[in-house]
């Protein structure tokens, strides 16, 4: 019988080659596929187009790939907090396409749900609308936005099983489930990998049909970007 379980990140990202389009789950540094990113950096695959809500920080997340000049184009909604990113953008080494966050999310959903395009009011009347079809429904204007296409989606879940089913934890869910649905090949790294049957079918966020390869990651750093606390009263 064939299995979706692979040994490690190296095996998981096999087939990713220079110039491909990747989706990477996570919001800020929360819920990012740390192991896969590290392995992309190790292997030095370059010329990549990365679809991800953010671009990491200088020394973590997609920032690590930027530092090694592996990213040709970044498609994101917010890219602050990254000096190397700024440098490459200003020097013209890096292309950047900024997309409203909801549009980014819904273009992933569209891909996963086999819908070629969606309508959203986000960006109507702004520079985001340039060159896009505008359509009025019920007196309100909407932009037609196209489903994403990505060669690989790299996502991070909390728990997964050998059938590829995934469960996310707290707001580390974010873009992961919708990118998991959207990749031509979807790779999931999980903190805990269990046998099929150990997860309650009602608790699963991403059904295994969307996941092609799964492995238990190691050495999760789960770095906090903005540590904020309140004082005990």
């Amino acid at each position, binding site marked *: 019988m064939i299995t979706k379980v692979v040994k490690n990140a190296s095996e998981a990202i096999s087939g990713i080659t220079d110039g491909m389009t990747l989706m990477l789950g996570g919001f800020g540094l*929360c819920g990012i596929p740390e192991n896969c990113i590290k392995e992309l950096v190790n292997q030095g695959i370059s010329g990549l187009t990365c679809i991800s809500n953010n671009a990491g920080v200088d020394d973590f997340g997609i920032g690590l790939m930027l530092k090694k000049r592996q990213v040709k184009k970044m498609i994101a909604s917010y890219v602050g907090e990254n000096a190397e990113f700024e440098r490459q953008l200003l020097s013209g080494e890096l292309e950047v396409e900024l997309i*409203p966050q*909801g549009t*980014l999310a819904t273009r992933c959903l569209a891909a996963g749900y086999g819908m070629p395009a969606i309508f*959203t009011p986000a960006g109507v009347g702004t520079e985001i609308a340039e060159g896009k079809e505008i359509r009025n429904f019920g007196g309100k204007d909407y932009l037609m936005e196209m489903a994403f296409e990505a060669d690989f989606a790299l996502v991070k879940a909390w728990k997964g099983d050998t059938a590829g089913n995934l469960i996310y934890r707290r*707001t580390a869910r974010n*873009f992961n489930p919708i990118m998991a649905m959207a990749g031509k090949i979807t790779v999931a790294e999980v903190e805990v990998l269990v046998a099929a049957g150990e997860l309650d079918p009602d608790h699963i966020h991403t059904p295994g049909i969307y996941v092609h390869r799964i492995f238990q990651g190691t050495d999760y750093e789960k770095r906090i970007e903005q*540590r*904020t606390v309140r004082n005990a009263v």
Partner: protein
Amino acid sequence: MLDKNGIAKRIAQEIRDGYYVNLGIGIPTLVANYIPEYIEVVLQSENGLLGMGPFPLEGMEDPDLINAGKQTITMLPGSAVFDSAMSFGMIRAQKVDLTILGAMEISEYGDIANWKIPGKLVKGMGGAMDLVASAKNIIVAMQQVNKAGESKLLPRCTLPLTGVRCIRKVVTELAVFEIDIDHGGFHLLERAPGVSITQIRNATAGRLFVPDHVPEMQL
């Protein structure tokens, strides 16, 4: 004239019991501190959470639990987590009752600019364009004049737009305005304690409509 906390306090008065509210970064975040205890409000964080609570106690930070500003947070009883598509789905479907956000410029037709300054490095719009295009009820919290002393309430926005004809209410350090997005104009509703109509006029570059009586804010 109000400070940031004063603006937040005034905006908190607009919140009704049972509201689902999305708070932007900056002054809007402060609004949470002034919600009266006798009403119940559920805060939405657009990365995928309803029921956002206060920051955690030291040592209780959970890297898997952050808000849209990437700050560590907590969850209140009755919280629900969801993915980013559902999060913006509920925003587009106008299930969120009130959105409070900051702005760099507001036009007298309710256009808003708050994401990009030409010549400066742009960081991205995040969820701002989705929020302003979708929400039925938006309050902008902002300083009325910029550091150069120029009004940010304009006939037309000069910066790249975030959304058009979407802002109906603005609260600044000087006043509360309602915007007539059909005919254009800032209608003065209230003035901050001790602030004169002249001060407000001087700080409003767009068309200003002043009724005979302008009450002072009750804070």
